[in-house]
């Protein structure tokens, strides 16, 4: 091996280093060239679908007894057919399932007047729709809810998120009274910063 490397050194000197001569053993020791690609590896698959035989055109096995099938096939092949665990019943019929379309029955209406009575009514703040601003001494108008039948209201609540007024009417009370506007005022210098004020709705404030 030392002789080979000495020869290669001499040859390389002759050819001024232009050609690298390697010994056969050295070539064998080097690893095979590895080519890396930046692209993803190509997976080659056949576009042809997997061959599947669903039915033979010349004979239909469905509902055909093994005995009668024998007439269709060569006797030798028939010997190889085993029907262990399987029965062929020529009298068996296709089962037709019945599906009821009962959408109408499923949309049956329910009477729920009590539920809607429990649901509060709402009034939006209408202050932005006032054509003429209402003026008060030492107070400004924050909200205006209308129309509300004051005498029928049994409970009310202000939804601070939406600014809407929620209220429940006493549905048993026959007398409704006159309809009213309900005003929410911001009072300056008073003990309570907020004040609710009922005004008769016949008082034109629009």
């Amino acid at each position: 091996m030392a002789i080979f490397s000495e020869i290669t050194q001499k040859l390389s000197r002759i050819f001024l280093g232009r050609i690298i001569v390697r010994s056969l053993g050295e070539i064998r020791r080097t690893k095979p060239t590895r080519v890396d690609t930046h692209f993803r590896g190509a997976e080659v698959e056949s576009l042809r679908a997997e061959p599947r035989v669903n039915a033979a055109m010349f004979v239909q096995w469905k509902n055909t007894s093994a005995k009668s099938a024998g007439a269709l096939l060569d006797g030798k092949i028939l010997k190889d057919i085993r029907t262990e665990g399987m029965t062929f019943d020529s009298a068996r019929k296709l089962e037709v399932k019945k599906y009821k379309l009962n959408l109408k029955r499923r949309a049956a209406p329910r009477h729920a007047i009590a539920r809607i009575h429990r649901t509060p009514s709402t009034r939006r703040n209408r202050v932005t729709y006032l054509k003429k601003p209402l003026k008060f001494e030492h107070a400004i108008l924050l909200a205006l809810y209308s129309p509300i039948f004051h005498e029928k209201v049994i409970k009310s609540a202000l939804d601070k998120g939406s600014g809407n007024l929620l209220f429940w009417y006493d549905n048993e009370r026959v007398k409704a009274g006159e309809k009213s506007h309900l005003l929410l005022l911001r009072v300056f210098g008073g003990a309570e910063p907020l004040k609710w004020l009922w005004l008769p709705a016949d008082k034109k404030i629009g």
Partner: protein
Amino acid sequence: MDNIRQLLGYATIDSRENYFRGAALVTDSRGIPTDFRYTEPVRPTKLERVLYGNALEVYLREDIILDNLLKAVEVKPSLWLLTDETLIIPTQKISRLPAVAIAVSARSPLEQSGQCEPTGESGVFMLQADNISAPLRITVSPENIPKISQLTQILTSFAEGMELIEPFSRVARALETVSESESKQ
């Protein structure tokens, strides 16, 4: 107009991806309910979706839910209010009463209460139902265009004692409570 004896009907159909439910509310002139009905939720199966195809939604909304609902209401209103314009004609056909689609507009208020102006769209009008609110966008069927002043008169008289559009939100809240109680069962 004596609006104490008159009633206003509200009909709505909650249509979601796989869920249909209808509700009808009839109120008096103060917004107090006199009748309220809602249907069971109808969830069509995959098979029904295939069988009915594109006609499923129309069939469910009009022939199944609306028909069941309006026929079940015992107290007949003067007119039906809707939020869905496509239900105007089927509602009129089933109930034999006028139906009006109603929505809050973003327009500035008209000069006076009761004022009604055409919008340029056929059958669509702006109605100033009261003095302190935005005008309402109302839509009527072609056959009711000649009767628009009569219909707006009814709506304006109701607006004196209630917020015309408010009962829809009440119905929505009532249906939410129904759904919540159903999901607990």
